[in-house]
C-alpha cells in the first residue's frame, strides 16, 4: 500500500476520535471583563488625545496668522527681550 493511502486510512480512523469536553464560559467572562475595562481606558485616552489635538490645531492656526503679520518674525521674536528690565 502507498504511504499516502495508509495516511488517508489513518485519518479516516482519527476522525472518529472524540475531543475532550470543556466548559469555558466562566473563564472567558473572567478574561473579557478586564480587557473590556482596558478598552474603556483606551477610549478615555483617545478622547483626551483628540481634544488636545483640536486645541493644538486652534492655537497653531492663530499662531501662524500672528507670525505672518510680523515683518521680520525672527527679529521681532527677540525684540521684547531688549526692553526687559533686568533689575
Amino acid at each position, binding site marked *: 500500500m502507498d504511504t499516502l493511502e495508509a495516511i488517508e486510512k489513518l*485519518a479516516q480512523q482519527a476522525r472518529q476520535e472524540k475531543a475532550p469536553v470543556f466548559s469555558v464560559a466562566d473563564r472567558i467572562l473572567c478574561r473579557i471583563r478586564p480587557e473590556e475595562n482596558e478598552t474603556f481606558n483606551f477610549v478615555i485616552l483617545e478622547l483626551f488625545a483628540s481634544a488636545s489635538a483640536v486645541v493644538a490645531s486652534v492655537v497653531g492656526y492663530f499662531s501662524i496668522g500672528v507670525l505672518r503679520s510680523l515683518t521680520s518674525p525672527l527679529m521681532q521674536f527677540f525684540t521684547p527681550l531688549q526692553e526687559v528690565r533686568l533689575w
Partner: protein
Amino acid sequence: MNGDEDSYVRLVRRYETQITNLMWRFSRDTAVCEELVQDVFVEVYFSLKSYRGKAPLLHWLRKIGVRVGYRYWKEQAKTKAFMPLQEFDAIEAEETDAFDPSAAAEILHALLARLPAADRLVLTLMYFEQCSTKEIAVRMGWSRAMVKMRALRSRKKLKTIAESENFLEKLGWIR
C-alpha cells in the same frame, strides 16, 4: 451584543463543543486546547462588530479558530519539539477498524507536526476536518491556487517524512 454577558455565555455554551473539536486538532494537550478555545471566544467577543451575518456564525467561529490555532503553531515552531514516531512502535492492531481512533489521531498529529506550520495547517484541515481547498482558502484568506499547490507539496513532504521513519513498517496493520 451591547455588553450582554448572558447572551454571550449562551453563545459560548452553544458552540464550545464544535470549537473544542477544532482546537483539539491544534493541540492534544488538554490544558493548551482549553486555553486555545478560550482564546478563540475572547477574540470572537472583541470581533463581533465585524461579523456581517452573511455566513452562519459557526463558519465565522471556525475561521477565527483556525487562525488562532495557526498562530499557536507558528509560536510553537520556534521550539521545534515533536514526538518521535518510535513512540508508536508498540501500537498494534489486527484491522484498521479495531484501532483506537485516539491512537490514530495521535500518530497523525505527530506525523503532521513535522511539517512547517502552513503545510501542516492545510493537511490537518484536509485529513481531520475534511475541508476542501476552497474552504481552506476562505478560512485562511489565501488563494485557492495557493492552497492547491501547498496541499500537493505538503503531501509529498509528508510522504518523504513517513517513509524516512519507516511509517508503513511500524503501522503494517493498515491494509
